[in-house]
């Protein structure tokens, strides 16, 4: 296995240890805290919190995540093909690789156009910009 990953391992370990280390130093140095009711309240601009903190949110976030994961996967799949392109160009047989990359781009564009036309990329649906108020 490549030795570069040993470095990666140590980086991850050192970075992960940094967090408890810094918090631990703080725990040793700081004065003892006396929690008060106001102090431990969830911050809501100084008012008493209203209702649960775990609010329902816009399903748009979810649609965006779905579009993202499909695009992400396609990019990950095309990377190894992309590494072969230069070699193919220099050896004069780039047509096939180019066709594959073109197909990849075409399919992504197709998916994007579908989402665009059906309005999935609009954050606020049904509200046109500068719509006159009634």
């Amino acid at each position, binding site marked *: 296995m490549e030795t570069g990953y040993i470095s990666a391992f140590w980086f991850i370990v050192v970075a992960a240890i940094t967090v408890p280390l810094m918090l631990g130093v703080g725990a040793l140095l700081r004065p003892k805290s006396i929690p008060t009711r106001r102090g431990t309240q969830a911050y809501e601009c100084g008012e008493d919190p209203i209702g649960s903190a775990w609010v329902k949110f816009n399903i748009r976030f979810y649609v965006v995540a779905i579009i993202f994961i499909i695009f992400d*996967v396609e990019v*990950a*799949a095309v990377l190894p093909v992309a590494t072969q392109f230069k070699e193919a160009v220099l050896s004069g047989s780039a047509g096939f690789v180019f066709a594959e990359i073109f197909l990849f781009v075409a399919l992504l564009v197709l998916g994007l156009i579908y989402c665009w036309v059906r309005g999935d990329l609009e954050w606020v649906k049904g509200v046109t910009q500068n719509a006159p108020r009634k």
Partner: protein
Amino acid sequence: MNLLDFSNSIEGYLLVSSILLTLGIFSVLTRKNAIGILLGVELILNAAGINFVAFSKFHSAAIDGQMVTLFIILIAAAEAAVALAIILRFYRLKQTIDADEASLLRN
């Protein structure tokens, strides 16, 4: 064979993957939450992926096993996207994601 060598042998890999498979099946069967079932399915798919990668190294020393795992990962992502979309649709329909409630097609 000590533990360290075992971890780096095909048997170690296969043991991990079979435990994952078992836990995945257990999860699929016992969860009421549809998302929990999806987690179990992900475990099962990953168990299959580990097997392919392990055999690609220890058995054939060729790339084909890794290709299959690559396709497994790609399809698993699509599966997760569609499955979660279905769960959300179901949630909107019935205001629950209890998989036992999904019984419209019964009878």
